[in-house]
């Protein structure tokens, strides 16, 4: 069974077509990257996968649950992290984790918070207000919140945005290890091509709401004759592949 099945997914705002007939599947335990420029439809797609946004057309199944009719059953087994969604700044890290532990009905919550804090190097920060943390510390807290319910599907929207290279690498290493240990399915939207190349089994290249290419990072590099995904991204964003093919003829 696939963890995520998307068919004909479309979102239209009036005359603007934000997402245009996306169809893809993510096998259990795989990591899928969503790549695309600003306005390509990544965030809209993630919002629809989370039930935050009702699609204009199409269907989404997460862990066998239809998001149109049974989204709460799926949400219980998913979680989400984004640097653009905050946690209450005045509450301590422990209080924030406790809130989400209750919302996700996590058993033995205090034990779970302690274990996550130890894993993510947050133990010293549990009593600190979330608003007083550095960007790197906030990212680790956001990850702890996203993992509080041991999600089977994890949606990450630019998880290392605004982090220094060292902290970004720490997060990526941690995600790799977590996926290997838990078998969690991850959907990752990112502008960091090195991150996508390192973490993702499969990549969807989005442009103007459509999938313009897909494949493993290795397959995409080979197909475009490039050494890194950043060049592939620019080829797609600027239609350079067609221009190169034209120049070659």
């Amino acid at each position, binding site marked *: 069974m696939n963890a995520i099945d998307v068919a004909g997914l479309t979102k239209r*705002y009036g005359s603007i077509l934000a997402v245009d007939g996306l169809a893809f599947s993510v096998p259990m335990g795989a990591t899928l990257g969503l790549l695309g420029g600003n306005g390509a439809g990544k965030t809209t797609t993630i*919002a629809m996968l989370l039930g*935050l946004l*009702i699609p204009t057309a199409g269907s989404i199944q997460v862990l066998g649950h239809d998001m149109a009719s049974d989204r709460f059953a799926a949400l219980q087994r998913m979680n989400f992290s984004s640097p*653009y969604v905050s946690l209450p700044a005045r509450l301590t890290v422990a*209080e924030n984790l406790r809130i989400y532990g209750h*919302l996700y009905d996590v058993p033995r919550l205090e034990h779970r918070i302690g274990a996550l804090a130890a894993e993510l190097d947050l133990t010293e920060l549990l009593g600190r207000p979330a608003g007083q943390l550095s960007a790197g510390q906030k990212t680790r807290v956001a990850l702890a919140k996203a993992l509080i319910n041991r999600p089977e599907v994890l949606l990450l929207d630019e998880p290392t945005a605004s982090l220094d290279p060292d902290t970004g690498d720490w997060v990526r290493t941690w995600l790799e290890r977590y996926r290997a240990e838990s078998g969690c399915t991850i959907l990752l939207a990112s502008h960091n091509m090195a991150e996508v190349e390192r973490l993702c089994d499969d990549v969807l290249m989005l442009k103007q709401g459509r999938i313009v290419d897909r494949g493993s990072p290795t397959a995409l590099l080979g197909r475009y004759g490039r050494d890194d995904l950043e060049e592939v991204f620019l080829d797609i964003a600027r239609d350079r592949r067609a221009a190169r093919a034209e120049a070659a003829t």
Partner: protein
Amino acid sequence: MKPAFRRVWGLLYRHLALYRRSWPRLLELAYWPVLQMCIWGFTARFLAQRIAAAPGGSIHAAALAGAALLGGVLLWEVALRSQMGVAIAFMEEIWSRNLGHVFVSPLRPWELVGALLGVSLARMLAGVLPAIGVAYLLYAFNLFALGPVVVLFFANLMMMGWAVALGVISLILRHGAGAEALAWSVLFGLTPFAAVFYPVAVLPAPMRALAFMVPASHVFEGMRAALISGVTRWDQLGLAFGLNLVWIAAATALFAYQFREARRRGALLGIGE
């Protein structure tokens, strides 16, 4: 604990933790009701002195006028604090940019509403009980001397406040931050029709018809009957309760519609911006 109750408790805990950590927020809860009570208490005392001193005036009539004024102030605060409690608790989530996490959790919209009502009840009690204490200590006015019927007055005014608050949240879902100001002001607009300080009979006929539709007007008619005649006006309480059911049903339908529309329009992604 059942998962649904635990999710409601999760949000209640979020607000309790916030208040525990923020004395300005705690102070604000009681500040306005106590200030109102002080101002209206002295006003009532002044009016009572003038009535008692007037030719043909009696101390009893003066005391009743003062009591009606103070009772009105205290009970109207119940409706105001209940409405603001729900609306402000919802806006706290917007201000902390936390709604995205809340709405992608398994928390059902009705559990969210349940938690907001719980926060509102706690906020209302934290605001109104000190004002009731001040009324007793400074002006020897005991609201609870009206008897157990006070509980029914409280319940009806809370229900009305909650119905209005659900309407306000619906408008915030529809219009975003632009509708936030309504959270502070909307119930004040109903004050003339709520007959807080005067009987409905003194209103012009068209306003009387509107006042009839406002649950609070029946509560305050009942309060004055209890104060002046010592009787419980079950007819007025029944009307207030019936109207509240209609208001809450309408507000619930509006909230459900606007929540779904917000999900359709993508408004939950950028609410408050």
